[in-house]
């Protein structure tokens, strides 16, 4: 089946089986391997992409659902080959260890920030609750986002309010 949609700001048409999972279409047919597959069942968030601006799990979508949609993957968020400020903050704050969860985390974080420009630590935690990380223990990821959203000046995490963590 021919499916047409916008991928990272370019309109494309591809010929794929309509019942192929979107994660497989991205990684196999389109060679966009930034999007990862962890669990394949909605639990880990590694496969997060944006569909019409909202975060979704590409392991729980089929190719037919792409028709006419506006899709953004981790490869599409850099501006003129420059890393997105969120990605820079992740690096600066040591929020990347093995890196497997990072693309999904960044995509989830962008959805959160679009809805809430200056999230609290608690809101960041909730916004990333669909993304698992086996390495970092989350603190550094939350520090990075807190810094990137202007809540700190880079001098370390804000002091926590009581009961926030």
């Amino acid at each position, binding site marked *: 089946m021919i499916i047409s949609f916008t991928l990272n700001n370019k309109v494309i048409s591809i010929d794929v089986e309509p*019942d192929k*999972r979107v994660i497989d279409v991205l990684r196999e047919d389109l060679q966009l391997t930034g999007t990862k597959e962890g669990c*394949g*069942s*909605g*639990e880990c*968030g590694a496969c*997060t992409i944006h569909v019409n601006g*909202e*975060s*979704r*799990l590409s*392991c*729980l*979508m*089929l190719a*037919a*659902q792409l*028709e006419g949609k506006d899709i953004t993957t981790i490869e599409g968020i850099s501006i003129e080959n420059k890393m997105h400020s969120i990605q820079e903050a992740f690096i600066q704050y040591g929020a990347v260890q093995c890196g497997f969860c990072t693309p999904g985390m960044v995509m*989830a974080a962008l*959805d*959160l920030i679009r809805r809430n420009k200056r999230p609290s630590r608690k809101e960041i935690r*909730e*916004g990333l*609750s*669909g*993304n698992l990380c086996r390495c970092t223990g989350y603190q550094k990821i939350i520090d990075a986002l807190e810094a990137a959203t202007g809540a700190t000046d880079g001098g370390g995490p804000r002091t926590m309010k009581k009961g926030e963590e």
Partner: protein
Amino acid sequence: MPHTIDDLWEMIYGNQQAMIYAGGTDVLARYRSLTSRNLICIEDIHELKEIYQQDNLIFIGSCVTHTRLLESKIIQKHLPVLIHALKVLGSPQIRNMGTIGGNICTASPAGDTLPPLYVLGAILEIRSIDSKRFTALKNFIHGPGKNSLQKDEVLYGIWINIKQDFNIHHYEKVGQRKMLAIAIASLAALLKLSESGIIEDARLAWGSVGPKTIASEKINKALIGKTLTEASLKLIVPLIREAVSPIDDIRASAHYRKMVSENLIFRLLKYGGHNND
């Protein structure tokens, strides 16, 4: 993919074996074990994505996602009990994809929208190419994964009468992990509390502690006329024990579930004395 309900009827008519899905968060999570990939996705059918108010009735299309419901001013204003439940349903991504219709049709004992919709007296509109019928949610769900849809029928939408004067809307679930928690037990409650703290009307429903949502007229009636105090709530504990029939599974034992479902009612004490949710 169908964009109108007529497109859908045509596709179902030409493909009787097809299975429909909306957000896919239940169906596609089982992708590898699906026996058939003959699937039709209905998430882009416009008329199933509407939320509107008609006099005292609110209509929610079956394909409205949890995120849209959370954002809806109409739902925020009139159905706080549903908002409380949606906030603890899955993760942001699951809420962006998952729909209320999917949550109802899946008929999981742990479905977070079910106890709220139950106490709200939700009526389901069910359609096929040539028929339309209405049924109460409590008659629609027969057991885990079992609903009363016929092969050619789809859940079109949900109707809720908002002419009810409950001033307390409560939902709480106890799960294992904070987020993505499939409930061990949950309680939805609507209370009408008088200025002096007397319960004038009550509707309670539990999730995850039986094959389907558990509610009992006996429990609701037993609360009426009582003050919202620990002593009066204690009186209904035996009734709860009688009503719930939890199972042992990998998440919790039946005994633990029973205990949690009893303890959950004492959380209502926080509303004692003032009218907020």
